[in-house]
């Protein structure tokens, strides 16, 4: 498995305005980054243990197809807490997620054995989140220098350590992460049941059909665009040079517009979600 198979290839990317600046994953939280959200779900679920863990989950309150808006809130809140939050926010959210994860384990009838507390599975999910943030960040702000890539990578470890992933589970350098990723992608395999679940997600079956109809083609386009070849093959979706050019042009335009948006517009939603987490903790309301 090579990086060409496991990462998206961008031939035309916006220019970097600040090649000497320090960067962190917090800068990747611009709202456009959520365009890669569904692709990230596909990536995460492409490991059979994660895929069946989600599809067979008995925790209905966190089911994306049954409670899509709640699931969207809790997922984006997790990202906001992990990347922008303080240590105490992460501690509170970890406790809440642990409560849900306690119920997620395979049964005798499950096609694969899994447990939501499996650190290896959590590392894979965190790695998918990191890849998603890195891809969208580079599409919006331009390619990072090797030093910036290292800073960005190191600052993103909280994506995993907010739950049970330990710091020493993360490959020590960004180059080591590429090796981990190429190896991890060899385990990608999307079974029929998981593919059907992801198909329903991409068709927006969980949303009002009137609302879903105009967004379906855009979501599919963005999702397949954010998937590397190994995931596209596993999902059985097609992509070509014309669509790739459209995808790159779209993000050149988005990146241009994004330069002119102040941070309270670009990242305001994440800070509002973070404030909501703190309010829920203060008022003893459920986080997930």
């Amino acid at each position: 498995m090579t990086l060409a198979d496991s990462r998206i290839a961008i031939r035309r990317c916006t220019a970097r305005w600040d090649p000497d600046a320090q960067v962190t994953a917090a800068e990747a939280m611009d709202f456009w980054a959520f365009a890669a959200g569904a692709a990230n779900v596909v990536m995460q679920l492409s490991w059979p243990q994660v895929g069946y863990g989600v599809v067979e989950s008995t925790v209905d309150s966190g089911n994306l197809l049954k409670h899509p808006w709640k699931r969207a809130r809790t997922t984006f809140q997790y990202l906001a807490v992990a990347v922008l939050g303080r240590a105490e926010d992460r501690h509170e959210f970890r406790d809440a997620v642990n409560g849900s994860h306690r119920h997620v384990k395979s049964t005798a009838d499950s096609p694969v054995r899994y447990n939501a507390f499996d650190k290896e599975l959590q590392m894979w999910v965190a790695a998918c989140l990191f890849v998603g943030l890195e891809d969208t960040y580079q599409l919006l702000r331009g390619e990072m220098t090797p030093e910036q890539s290292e800073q960005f990578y190191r600052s993103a470890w909280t994506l995993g350590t907010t739950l049970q992933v330990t710091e020493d589970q993360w490959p020590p350098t960004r180059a080591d992460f590429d090796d981990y990723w190429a190896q991890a992608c060899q385990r990608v395999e999307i079974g029929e049941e998981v593919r059907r679940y992801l198909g329903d997600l991409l068709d927006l079956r969980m949303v009002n059909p009137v609302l879903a109809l105009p967004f379906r083609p855009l979501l599919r386009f963005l999702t397949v665009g954010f998937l590397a070849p190994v995931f596209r093959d596993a999902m059985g979706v097609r992509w070509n040079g014309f669509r790739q050019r459209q995808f790159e042009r779209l993000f050149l335009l988005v990146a241009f517009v994004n330069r002119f948006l102040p941070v309270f517009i670009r990242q305001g939603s994440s800070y509002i979600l973070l404030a909501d987490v703190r309010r829920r903790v203060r008022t003893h309301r459920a986080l997930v």
Partner: protein
Amino acid sequence: MLHHLGVRGQCPVDAQVSANPPLAARIAINIIRMLSGLRSVLRFEMTIAEWIGTAVMLAAPYLVIGFFWSLTHNWHLGSIVLWPVLLVSAVCAA
């Protein structure tokens, strides 16, 4: 020192005081919080590009209102920009 380290809650005496502080103390705490918030706002940095974007976002609805104002009143290019002045003078003249 403990306050600076953000571990105030771990000190039982301090926690007892902060749980129900007297009115003067609460006012002082609120003023300090307000000043701290004001400092954060004044310290906020934006790039020139972000300033341009903010100006465009604020100007767009203003000019749209001005455009409709000039359509419904005596058409004049200046009224698209100066509609608030014209609005005030129209109200005063009525």
